[in-house]
């Protein structure tokens, strides 16, 4: 729901409540005011008739449908004015109507008259109607005004906010430009923009640093590591004792490990920075076949049963190098973490790739292996980045990956769409 709609709804709700309360008061006030005025009017009429009687007009000649003059015993005390509602015959409308009756008694020339005068009362229904109609029109006018002006004004007031929103949505690391806003004079929005500007600058710097780091990483670490490797290979070729060989071997292996970690992390960073652009539509089926051909001796050596169900026409839009890494990692894993005389089943169709292999039951949730440095096996030489790379590739290309253990088999399933 748009902000402006929420504000409008609340505003209208509150206005409606205010109009209801106001309507109630207006109704009451209007009723009592009308009664009061009417009372005054009736009193004046009665006084006027009393005066005419005093001046000698015969009371019975004055009578008509609104006037009632009765003679009452003289010894009764003079009745003060009193008003009451009564049903009385109303001549023009030819029926009984609620009327206001005012009566008062006068002692004139030794006679005691009670003069009553009727008049039509404004009915409660009429007052209600008036009040409701008035309030509704006020409400309707507000509705129209709010509808038009609120929208218009809010557009004006919120325009810096919308501009900021657009700018944030258009922000991209590839463009490499921090967010910039023009002054708008609204302090809340100024604060927001200032924060966004600062944040975007920080983001870009961080991003650049990480990118540079990963770019330099391979060079800066791999060069000395290559030197170490060369020196160790040189040492290996000298006259060494068994003890020295162990030391060299251990140093060599750890150097290799550093290498692999650096290279894998570099690969991950490149994937995260989306540096593998220009994907090609390539035939994944033939890539799988190629990968299997390269590894089939390993499969044979461990006496692993390989079965495949590969649709030969699976085309995928992916960078060729990335496809190679993806398949080598997955199939390589299914061999490495297999057991002798185990089995591998590979299924590929345009919908998914499924690689199933036997192996030791995982101790933890197998999905964890998709995280960095989470290893399922105790094999000292796996560094625990292979599946993290696979996962990142899936994220980049919008594939969904699942890893589960089912019927004593490790299953990795990648849904392409």
């Amino acid at each position: 729901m748009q902000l402006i709609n929420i504000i409008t709804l609340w505003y209208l709700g509150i206005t409606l409540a205010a109009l209801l309360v106001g309507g109630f008061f207006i109704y009451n006030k209007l009723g009592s005011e009308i009664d009061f005025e009417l009372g005054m009017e009736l009193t004046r009429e009665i006084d006027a008739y009393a005066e005419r009687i005093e001046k000698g007009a015969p009371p019975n000649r004055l009578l008509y449908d609104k006037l009632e003059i009765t003679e009452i015993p003289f010894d009764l005390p003079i009745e003060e004015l009193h008003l009451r509602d009564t049903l009385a015959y109303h001549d023009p409308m030819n029926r009984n109507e609620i009327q206001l009756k005012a009566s008062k008694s006068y002692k004139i020339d030794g006679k005691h008259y009670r003069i009553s005068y009727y008049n039509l009362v404004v009915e409660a229904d009429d007052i209600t109607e008036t009040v409701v109609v008035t309030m509704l029109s006020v409400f309707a006018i507000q509705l129209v005004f709010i509808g038009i002006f609120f929208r218009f004004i809010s557009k004006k007031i919120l325009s810096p906010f919308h501009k900021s929103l657009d700018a944030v949505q258009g922000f991209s690391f590839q463009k490499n430009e921090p967010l910039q806003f023009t002054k708008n004079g609204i302090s809340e929005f100024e604060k927001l923009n200032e924060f966004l500007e600062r944040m975007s600058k920080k983001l870009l710097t961080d991003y650049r640093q990480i990118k540079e780091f990963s770019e330099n990483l391979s060079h800066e670490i791999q060069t000395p590591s290559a030197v170490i490797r060369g020196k160790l290979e040189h040492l290996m070729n000298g006259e060494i004792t068994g003890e020295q060989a162990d030391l060299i071997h251990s140093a060599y292996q750890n150097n290799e490990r550093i290498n692999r970690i650096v290279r894998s992390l570099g690969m991950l960073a490149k994937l995260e920075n989306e540096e593998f652009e220009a994907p090609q539509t390539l035939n994944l089926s033939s890539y799988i076949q190629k990968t299997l051909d390269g590894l089939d001796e390993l499969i044979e050596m461990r006496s692993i049963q390989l079965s495949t169900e590969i649709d030969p026409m699976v085309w995928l839009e992916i960078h060729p190098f990335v496809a190679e890494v993806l398949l080598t990692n997955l199939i390589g894993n299914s061999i490495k973490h297999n057991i002798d005389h185990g089995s591998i089943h590979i299924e590929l169709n345009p919908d998914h790739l499924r690689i199933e292999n036997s192996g030791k039951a995982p101790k933890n949730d197998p999905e964890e292996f998709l995280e960095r440095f989470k290893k399922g096996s105790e094999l000292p030489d796996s560094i625990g980045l292979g599946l993290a790379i696979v996962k990142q590739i899936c994220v980049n290309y919008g594939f969904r990956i699942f890893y589960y253990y089912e019927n004593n088999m490790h299953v990795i399933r990648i849904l392409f769409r």
Partner: protein
Amino acid sequence: MKILLVEDNPELTQNVVNYLSGEGIICETAQNLYEAQDKILSFDYDCVLLDLMLPDGNGLELLEIIKSQKIETSVLIISAKDALDDRLRGLDEGADDYLPKPFHLSELLARLKAIFRRSKTGGFDEIVFNEITIEIHQLLAKVNNQPLDLTKKEFDLLLFFITNKNRVLGKQAIAQHLWGDYTDDLANFDFVYQHVKNLRKKITGAGGKDYISTVYGIGYKFDPLVS
């Protein structure tokens, strides 16, 4: 064989020179692009080992000069910038091979020899070592003129051993040579051991000497002097 090594890291240069000169390869070195240009225009080399990240520019510039001046030499790019684009660009522009750093020296030698063979004989050559003969273009290895039934990987392994004879080859170097960059952690899964074992069995089975020996669990050595 005479090569020019263009590399700015002196330690690495020394490693390579040590290893290659042990194989009778004459190594000259250049530390930067300027020096390399100078040498390439003045002397003949069979191959240029070219690093791409040099203090005064990108090694690809040298490649351009070699191509535009029609200098007859092979080029093997060695670079830590294993960005795929660089690799493709290098090969597109006429480099003969690309070896990402860090490489095994044995791998460098194998690639260098392969390039050398291709450029000099078109690959139609035989390597003869005592009773072992390798016909590279036919992927055929013979012992005492009797063909060996080798798989592609075993053949590669034998060639790798003979190219680097008398050197200790680490298991990682062998794994990387056989299965490529991203599978080198296969080295410790006994796959290398199995391959070497099979190869030895096949050679000795055909009446060849058991030249390959294990070196303290580090790796293997093809020892020509085995008795």
